[in-house]
């Protein structure tokens, strides 16, 4: 049930956004995440956006791993 993957916001329609998943456009509820913008990568769980990816933090994580490497 936690199988959520980051999906890119294509269009905003009020309380919903459209994301592309597996070639299909899906409608996702953003009432928990009102500040999304087109181009953001959001984490979708059971039809709702629960958080958006912070690209700087993603890079920081990979940098830390590379340091260990």
């Amino acid at each position: 049930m936690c199988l959520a993957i980051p999906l890119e916001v294509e269009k905003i329609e009020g309380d919903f956004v459209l994301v592309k998943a597996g070639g299909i456009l899906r409608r996702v509820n953003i009432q928990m995440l009102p500040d999304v913008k087109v181009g953001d990568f959001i984490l979708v769980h059971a039809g709702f956006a629960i958080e958006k990816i912070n690209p700087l933090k993603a890079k920081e994580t990979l940098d830390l791993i590379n340091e260990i490497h």
Partner: protein
Amino acid sequence: MRYIDEFRDKNLIRSLAQRINQVMPQQPINLMEVCGTHTMSFHRFGLKRLLPSHLRLVSGPGCPVCVSDENYIDKAVAYSKIKDVIIVTFADMLRVPGSRSSLEKQRARGSDVRIVYSAWDTLRIACDNPKKTVIFLSVGFETTAPTIALSLQEARRKNLKNLLFFSSLKLIPAAMDYLLKDKRLNIQGFLCPGHVSTIIGVKSYEFIPKKYGIACCIAGFEPLDIMQGIYVLLRQIRQDRPEVINQYMRLVKRQGNKKAQAVIKKAFKITDTKWRGIGCVPKSGLKLKNEFFRFDVEKVMPLKLRGELKDKRLKLCRCGDVLKGIIQPLECPLFAKSCKPQSPQGPCMVSSEGTCHAYYKYQ
């Protein structure tokens, strides 16, 4: 795919495995992965063989379907038998055995049981079937709770008269606290659930190192996330510096998602609740607030079930001990014999995130 492929880099996975082997203490270490999805990812990506042999990953009660009380399933089954009722549920609840039956069996006998991917879909089902009573089995942890809260609020806004919610929502940190009080539990670190943490934040786990001296790391679900999470835990243990570290910082904030937390608080109140196989865990459940009573199936259509005799085989089921991380699936007498994915005896085998299901599938 972005934000996925980078976290599956094979070279980096291997080098993290090396570092894990280097930092691993001499003595055996047990780490508990609370979340079912961590168990699945761990097996799916074959990470076990990369780890030291005296490092044991124990699966915890992080599968909301697995820990839904038998009585809850029995009531759902009873509701499904009532005329003009539509039961709406997430897919993995369908095959969970109650004391006598399951929703899947009831559906085969003519009950109207429907699967949804999102709680929001229940609104459409209720609107399309005004003469029926739609009962939604609200099962999940803190990741799912706000999605149900928002659906509930929308049901009220639309003034729906035929949609009821049956809550079995549960809270993870309360369960972790309860498990830690069991002296049989021998773990030195927790791999904390990534997506629950996006909602509740880092602060929710801080009592664990403070109160129990046990290391915590919030980790994502890609192989690199899990490996880095394990490395971080071992380093804390090696240095005897337990704290809560956030490996999943690209998605988890210290305070979590405040909007989601507010939405949960508006719809639900915290109660004591029974976890299947574990017992009654204080302040670990969510039930509908009194102001939503007309959407609460337990208020509108209360059920009292007669005591049912348990199937003899169910008595041998050791899901409880598996969920608490006290035994591995192989130690259960039913595992891979009478209990398999095609014929599950207990919740750990039924759910695709169940520990026994993962072990059976991948080992």
